[in-house]
């Protein structure tokens, strides 16, 4: 097994949370280690910790306010114990998630614009987007909102100059080297290229979020008709 990277350090997020930082820039290897470490910490079931959050470059641990000790010390110890014992394999951390997506112009609000900016035909953009294999790098910003890595470098495009006041729920959007999916109608500046009929976050489901960090994602193009019938079934 490849040697595990060492954390840059453990920094406080106030007096009730600590962040084990591995990298200050996005590195997919490091990102995967953060997810594996988060899984190992969760598996220990430490009663002092209420939330373990794998982020892009590290792992945050949120402590129970009743904890009376030093969170930096506790977090550093926990990380050391987990790293020493060995982390679970990346393949065991995430699940496979297939996301049906309709790239019809009606939903792909920015496809024409992206096509112009990249000088690639809309058909080619759709083909490249649907062909790639992706991985969820982090879930954050809003409930069930994934940051998905693995975008074809040819599709790398900056965010829109003017963010939209409302991006419709289910919109799949790209910017730089990532894809996001808007779980609710909300403001956003990413380039919308399609929409999924799936509900990304539903508190009533046993698994409320469609995505978790580490999940392997594929987009499956569907027609508008299939989109509508899939949405009916949600």
């Amino acid at each position, binding site marked *: 097994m490849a040697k595990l990277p060492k954390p840059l350090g453990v920094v406080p997020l106030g007096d009730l949370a600590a962040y084990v930082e591995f990298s200050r820039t996005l590195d997919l290897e490091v990102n995967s280690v953060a997810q594996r470490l988060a899984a190992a910490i969760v598996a220990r079931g430490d009663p002092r910790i209420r939330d373990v*959050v794998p982020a892009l470059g590290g792992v945050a641990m*949120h402590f129970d306010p009743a904890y009376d000790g030093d969170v930096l010390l506790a977090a550093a110890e926990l990380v050391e114990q987990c790293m020493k014992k060995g982390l679970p394999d990346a393949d065991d951390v995430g699940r496979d998630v297939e996301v049906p997506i309709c790239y019809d112009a009606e939903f792909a609000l920015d496809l024409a614009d992206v096509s112009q900016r990249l000088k690639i035909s809309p058909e080619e953009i759709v083909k490249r987007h649907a062909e790639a294999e992706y991985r969820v790098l982090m879930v*954050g910003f809003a409930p*069930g909102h994934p940051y998905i890595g693995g975008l074809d470098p040819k599709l790398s495009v900056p965010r829109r100059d003017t963010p939209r006041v409302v991006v419709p729920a289910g919109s799949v959007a790209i910017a730089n080297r990532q894809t996001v999916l808007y779980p609710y109608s909300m403001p956003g500046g990413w380039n919308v290229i399609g929409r999924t009929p799936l509900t990304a*976050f539903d508190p009533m489901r046993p698994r*409320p*979020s469609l995505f978790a960090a580490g999940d392997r994602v594929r987009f499956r193009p569907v027609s508008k008709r299939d989109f509508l019938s899939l949405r009916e079934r949600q």
Partner: protein
Amino acid sequence: MSVRVLRPGLLTTVQDQGRHGHQHLGLSPGGAMDTIALALANALVGNPPGMAALEITVIGPELLFEEDTLVALCGAEFLGGFPHNRPVLARAGSKLSVGRAVRGARAYLAVAGGFWLEAMLGSCSTYLPGAFGGLDGRALRHGDVLPLAENCSKERFAALKRRNGSTVRWSAPPLTLPDREPIVVHAVEGQHFASFDAAAQRTFFDTVWRVAPESNRMGFRLAGPALVRADGEILSGPTCLGSVQVPPNGAPIALMADHQTTGGYPRIAEIAAADVPRVAQLAPGATLHFALCSLETARELRLDSKARLDASLRSIAWEYGMSGK
């Protein structure tokens, strides 16, 4: 057995101790902004400290009690003449009209036995951005009916010592109300503190900040001088309750109960956990300034605050004839 909403007030929502363990899915814990006032209100009616109560914001509601109901109002001081910080037996058919807040911003109205509501993901808290939890995921409206979970009000009131009519002859001291402004808020250096230049660092701790009108349960926007930062973008990372982030416009935002779980803005400071409930009592227009403290001091403040709350909870339990834990 229920409470009827005659007038909803500015923003009255059901809140409890919060929804924990879901931040990795992007869901913040939410819950009461001032957890200490929530705990006191609950204790005063004989409930566990984290039970769901009504969080009343700046302008209070008018409620009608359909049965005799033991209630307590804790936190901010509101006009309307209703006794604060003590258990009151609201008689069947009586109305409780909560006016405008005169000190603090949020009060909690707890009822004996709690409200009959379905928990979602382990909590009854209303999460407004996701429109779930509490009562249909929204703030109370005119005509809403909140059923009570238990018919225990009269029994509990009878168990209280030093009763007098429909109230008691004692009250619990409020623990989170601002005495005078600006309030002093302890904060430790944020992860990106060092990436701000010395002038911006000084400005942050020297300024009397004003809570801007566009503040809400997600975050308080602070009006004051712009904090300039030369460095470029940072990698999106985890945030928490009390994180103070600085967007490119230089106006800091203190993250509150419904905060986002990750963010891409640099965090200049983190508010000491002990002081977050006090910040929650600031209405738009109120002022605060930050005092830099060490992590160890923040921990001590947290332990002190917990000890003070525990002492209050014990003395309330004593009034119920319980020895207290």
